[in-house]
């Protein structure tokens, strides 16, 4: 069944600016959907519309079969984890967890039981009587999740919950969030600008740009068949290389080089390939790259160079000898991408 349906949601501010320009997304039961996009793309606004913290200008938000557009956040059966945790600084962890239940008139023995349960689940039982200021960043993060869990909501809303943590802790917490969400089997929306987080966490990714959906799909789909040049350059690190070319009669021409391409399309195109999906075959033929800087990353190295006026990056296994001066690239056809240079859409 579908937990959440967002139907053509629009958010327009009084000054006329549109933050969300007609977005439709479904979140199935137990599914973790990640909204990803650059800052200002409307992902947080969309999440806040689901939470009821932003008014919905137009469209429908339907939670468990009930339109919730005009419900107060507290009446929507949602729980939210904020970027800066938003823990009540003057309350102990226990009171932080209990506050939402207390406001709903939950009997106090039930509150105690749920708080203890959540505490055990998140391994924060020993901190229950401390104040948030006495906890580390990771512990605060757990408390913030605990506050969401005790409520047994229909859906969890995560608003960039890991961005205040250092890199190591972030990786660790990312894994824990995923485990926890699987275990509770509750639907969740997770907002982030970090494509690595999006790829690793999501059942499905919603790539947003400029208030509109660029692509919805599983991480694999989004990675291997990006719908637009925006998605191509946003997902994957380093991003996909994009160079202009010309297609005619099944041949792609880039500068002096040409290669066969199984496409009926003709005219100018944007040619894309992933840095890690290019072969350096040492042969004299191929796409010629003038090599600039080489970065050693341990397991592999990044070779930065130019094709004509365009910067490209190629990843190479570190065990192979580094190239020098100039290299020739060849591609498997399933690893190449063609986009319309005007609309950016996949051809």
């Amino acid at each position, binding site marked *: 069944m579908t937990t959440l349906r967002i139907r053509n949601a629009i958010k327009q501010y009084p000054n006329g600016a549109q933050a969300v320009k007609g977005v439709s997304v479904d979140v199935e039961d137990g599914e973790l959907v990640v909204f990803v996009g650059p800052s200002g793309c409307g992902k947080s606004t969309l999440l806040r519309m689901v939470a009821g913290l932003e008014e919905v200008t137009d469209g429908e938000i339907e939670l468990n079969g009930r339109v919730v557009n005009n419900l107060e956040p*507290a009446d929507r059966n949602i729980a939210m984890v*904020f970027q800066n945790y938003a823990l009540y600084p003057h309350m102990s962890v226990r009171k932080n967890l209990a506050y939402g239940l207390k406001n709903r008139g939950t009997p106090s023995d039930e509150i105690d039981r749920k708080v203890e349960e959540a505490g055990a689940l998140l391994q924060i039982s020993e901190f229950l009587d401390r104040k948030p200021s006495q906890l580390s960043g990771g512990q605060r993060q757990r408390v913030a999740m605990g506050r969401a869990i005790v409520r047994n909501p229909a859906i969890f809303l995560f608003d960039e919950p890991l961005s205040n943590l250092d890199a190591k802790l972030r990786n660790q917490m990312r894994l824990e969030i995923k485990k926890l969400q699987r275990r509770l089997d509750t639907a969740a929306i997770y907002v982030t600008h970090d494509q690595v987080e999006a790829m690793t966490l999501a059942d499905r990714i919603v790539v947003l740009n400029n208030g509109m959906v660029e692509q919805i799909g599983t991480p694999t789909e989004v990675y291997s068949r990006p719908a637009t040049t925006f998605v191509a350059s946003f997902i994957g690190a380093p991003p996909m290389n994009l160079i202009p070319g010309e297609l005619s009669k099944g041949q792609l021409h880039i500068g002096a080089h040409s290669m066969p391409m199984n496409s009926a399309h003709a005219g100018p195109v944007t040619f894309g390939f992933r840095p890690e999906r290019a072969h350096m075959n040492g042969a004299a033929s191929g796409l010629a790259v003038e090599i600039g800087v080489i970065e050693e990353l341990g397991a592999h190295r990044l070779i930065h160079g130019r094709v004509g006026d365009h910067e490209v990056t190629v990843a190479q296994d570190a065990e192979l000898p580094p190239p020098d001066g100039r290299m020739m690239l060849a591609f498997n056809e399933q690893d190449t991408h063609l986009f319309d240079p005007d609309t950016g859409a996949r051809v």
Partner: protein
Amino acid sequence: MAVTEIDSSAETSGTTKAASADNRPRRKTKIFDHVVLWLGVLLMMGPIIVAFTTSTFDHVTIHREGMQFGWGGEFVETYKNVLYQEGGFTGEVTGLLMTQNSLILGLGFAIGKIVVSMLAAYAIVYFRFPLATFSFWVIFTTLLLPLEVRILPSYEVVQQLGMLNTYSGLIIPLIASATGTFFFRQFFKSVPNELMEAARIDGAGPVQFFWDILVPLSKTMMAAIFIIMFVVGWNQYLWPTLMTTEEGYFTLVRGIRNIMQQMIGADIPEYNEALAMAMLAMLPPALVIIIFQRMFIKGLVEQEK
């Protein structure tokens, strides 16, 4: 990098180490700084100390020999007189009664101001309503006109309302100024918005949010502003002078004026009692800001922002 390290080590150990050539100028500025500070302390404290020592002498000695720098031995006598002796024209007012009135004014003013301005600031910061901007500007205009400027018509208004010689007439008009409202407005704006959103998701309404979250969060701010407002209220002079003609309502600071007037006509003025009264009037606010120094400074400096 290396330079900073040398510098900071010189800073911490420079005074104990034997003075090397490099250390000498540093040391000189340090002595200079202490000299400046000592002169400053002398300037600030000197008048108070002389006033206090003089108040321990009897008024004849003071009249004959001028202000005194030693211990006069009349301390108990003088201060007992000031505190307990009934004075004034009606012979009803004692120092103790005036202290009590000062406390009522200081506490009433501080508490009243905090309550009124917190509520108003909460409405302005956390609510969307049609008259919000208008209300803000009305409150803002009160910053433009200190009470001293509109003293005459204010007096007439209070007179017409029959509030002369009442505590409420003494306190409420002083609350009209918006400094407190702006202070709390600034503070509320600095409270992360997510806290309110989290509370809304947790099912807290506006009243609950205010009481459960915002008030506990504002404790330090409330304490800081309380200290400042208590001092400001205690030190009020012009308004109490006009408002209270009945001596039963005199505050200590207001009482200074009467002491002064009695001194003018006297052959040998009661210098000692006047100074003792001044000491009494400055003691509570001084104690409050010394004890709560950190909070007092915080409150004072936060107002700037």
